[in-house]
């Protein structure tokens, strides 16, 4: 899931508006600041009664719908580019189909490390693509073999892409069926 940069500012804005609305209602009920008794609703009614207000409300509704839908859809994952341009000294341009890299890396990781069910996703990052391999650890694994497998993958990718167009990251998650074994082991 992507994280739009506007999430935080818009959340702050909505939070402030909700807080202000809540504070106004509480003041209306308990008369804490006395703002409600000084409130003159006449101008508000005049604006709402105006001929143009219905059209303005409709326009505002359309803008809000577009903003809300954009905000929702902006977090949908965007597929990474299929091709990566390799660094070249000449004027020729060489594009590599990066989709073929991930399955190979998945297979290499499953073979080299004590993990199972490796999945992969590619992300466009500045200057290339990052292949993120996500695997479930075998509880019998040891740190050394995991580090060795990740280092091996990293070296293989760096050798294949010396310009750094593709990088690999390994995320090791907990075991898939951690609670399957309920009987304690007895030595």
């Amino acid at each position, binding site marked *: 899931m992507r994280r739009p940069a506007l*999430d935080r500012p818009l959340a702050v804005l*909505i939070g402030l508006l909700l807080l202000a609305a*809540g504070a106004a209602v509480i003041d209306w*009920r308990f008369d804490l600041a006395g703002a409600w008794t000084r409130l003159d609703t006449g101008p508000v009614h005049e604006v709402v009664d105006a001929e143009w207000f*219905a059209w303005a409300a409709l326009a505002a509704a359309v803008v809000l719908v577009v903003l809300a839908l954009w905000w929702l859809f902006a977090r949908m994952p965007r597929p990474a580019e299929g091709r990566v341009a390799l660094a070249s000294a000449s004027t020729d341009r060489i594009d590599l189909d990066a989709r073929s890299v991930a399955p190979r890396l998945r297979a290499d990781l499953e073979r080299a490390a004590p993990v199972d069910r490796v999945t992969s996703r590619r992300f466009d990052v500045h200057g290339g693509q990052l292949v993120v391999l996500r695997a479930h650890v075998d509880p019998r694994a040891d740190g050394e073999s995991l580090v060795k497998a990740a*280092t091996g993958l990293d070296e293989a990718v760096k050798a294949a892409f010396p310009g750094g167009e593709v990088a690999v990251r*390994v995320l090791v*998650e907990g075991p898939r069926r951690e609670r399957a074994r309920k009987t304690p082991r007895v030595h």
Partner: protein
Amino acid sequence: MKVRDPRRRPAASGLAVLGAILLLALAALLAEHAAAERGWIDADSWLREALAALDDRQPSVWVLAGGIAAAVLGLWFLIGACLPARRSHLPADGDGDLWVSPRAVEAIASDAAERAPGVLHAASELRRRRLKVKALLAPGHEAAIADILESVGDRLAGIAELEVAVQAKEGGR
């Protein structure tokens, strides 16, 4: 290539979905007003009814409840928007870009502890940089704690620099 650390989804991300729904609700209120005023639907304007209620001396119970809920929700939005996204995995040693989740560390540590002599059962819990291993020892194996520490330390070598604490309990005969 510079890449960010793997992180959990920030609280603001979940609030954004709620915020978008609130915007859609506000849009529905405004659109209903426009439709009612232009005569496109045979209904009174909700917005006009809400404004008419402003002239009351005191809000109704429902309005007051809504106001309190809005204030609480607003505070939640403000706090959530400021919370940073926490790192989801621990960085491992080595040249590779390897990250291990706390659950994976716990599983490896539990398995390592269970394989120490005299341990019947073990469970681990990782909080920040402190790994707590709870072990059930076979009767007469009080010395197994040192073995557990060594076993867990050996297995986790390279993937996490952790402070390991063992809490052992001797099983009944």
